């Protein structure tokens, strides 16, 4: 068993047991959201900030009823923001909404088709938010130089994409991710693109500190079962990383059984 005490995962000074962060979008209803989050074992959940639907039946349940902020760490995001100003505004509203809550996910998008991050605006927003006292987990491209800049600005976690948001294409550039992981002094979490459990395991085997996902679970035919698969894959990948894999031997085998003491050939 992995020694969880020695393998503490900290973000902004708080320790978590689970290295899986899950989104709460795209579920059938709040009951399914809650069931999937619980099955995933995630302690941090991302949420979006949107206009109140005025005129809606006030007795309708809200996300905050389904996932009480007292039981989960909320990670309000800036999904849908295309410039620094909108992102900062959104997170200031989130802080007021959640009674001074500081841990946030910054994402500034550059294009509605790819949802690829706009790095220039992301850097600008990160600077403002860090100065404003937020603990900023930042979604970004897999550029190691930009990742370093975001760390130097003071972001508490760097979250490069594995592939496009919601694409389920998995880890497209493990080498860049590894460059980011190796040079970072803050947690690196893979955010976006994970499609199935093996993608999550591969990401963890690369040495990242955690994974953030939504569509891979919510969009699965059986989200609850996929949530469990992801929990196990993240644990398995983490264990494999800590255990240290055998080196790859190109073009040569290495028998596991003794080569001496074979019975005589007839």
């Amino acid at each position, binding site marked *: 068993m992995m020694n969880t005490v020695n393998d503490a995962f900290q973000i902004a000074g708080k320790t978590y047991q689970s290295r899986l962060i899950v*989104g*709460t*979008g*795209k*579920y059938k209803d*709040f009951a399914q*959201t809650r069931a999937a989050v619980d099955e995933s074992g995630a302690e941090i959940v*991302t*949420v*979006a*900030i*949107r*206009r*109140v639907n*005025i005129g809606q039946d*006030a007795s309708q349940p*809200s*996300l*905050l009823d389904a996932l009480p902020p007292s039981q989960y760490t*909320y990670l*309000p*995001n800036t*999904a849908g923001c295309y410039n620094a100003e909108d992102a900062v*505004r*959104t997170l*200031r*509203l*989130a802080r*007021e*909404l*959640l009674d001074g809550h500081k841990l946030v996910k910054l994402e500034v998008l550059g294009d509605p088709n790819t949802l690829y991050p706009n790095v220039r605006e992301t850097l600008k927003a990160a600077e403002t938010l860090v100065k404003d006292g937020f603990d900023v987990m930042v979604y970004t491209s897999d550029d190691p130089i930009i990742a370093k800049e975001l760390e130097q600005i003071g972001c508490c976690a760097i979250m490069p994409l594995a592939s496009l*948001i919601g694409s389920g294409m998995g880890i497209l550039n493990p080498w860049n991710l590894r460059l980011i992981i190796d040079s970072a002094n803050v947690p690196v979490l893979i955010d976006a693109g994970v499609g199935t459990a093996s993608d999550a395991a591969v990401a963890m085997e690369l040495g990242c500190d955690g994974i*953030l*996902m*939504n*569509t891979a679970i919510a969009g699965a035919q059986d989200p609850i079962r996929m949530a469990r698969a992801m929990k196990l894959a993240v644990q398995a990948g983490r264990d494999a990383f800590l255990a240290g894999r055998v080196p790859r031997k190109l073009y040569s085998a290495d028998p596991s059984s003794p080569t001496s003491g074979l019975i005589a050939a007839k």
Partner: protein
Amino acid sequence: MIQLSINGAAREFAESLSIAQMIVELELTGKRIAIERNGEIVPKSQYEQTILQNGDVLEMVVAVGGG
């Protein structure tokens, strides 16, 4: 009669009212929301004493499911 813009839609109220009173009128009592008035966040502690003026632009937000 005053007119406010709330989340992009025009709304009329019989007379000036506080944010706290507006929340009651909109049947949002008890809902966890955050409010921006003319681009500035209004802390919850100020809802009672903040009196809305004709032409005020309000944004009211809530946490929803998202990744």
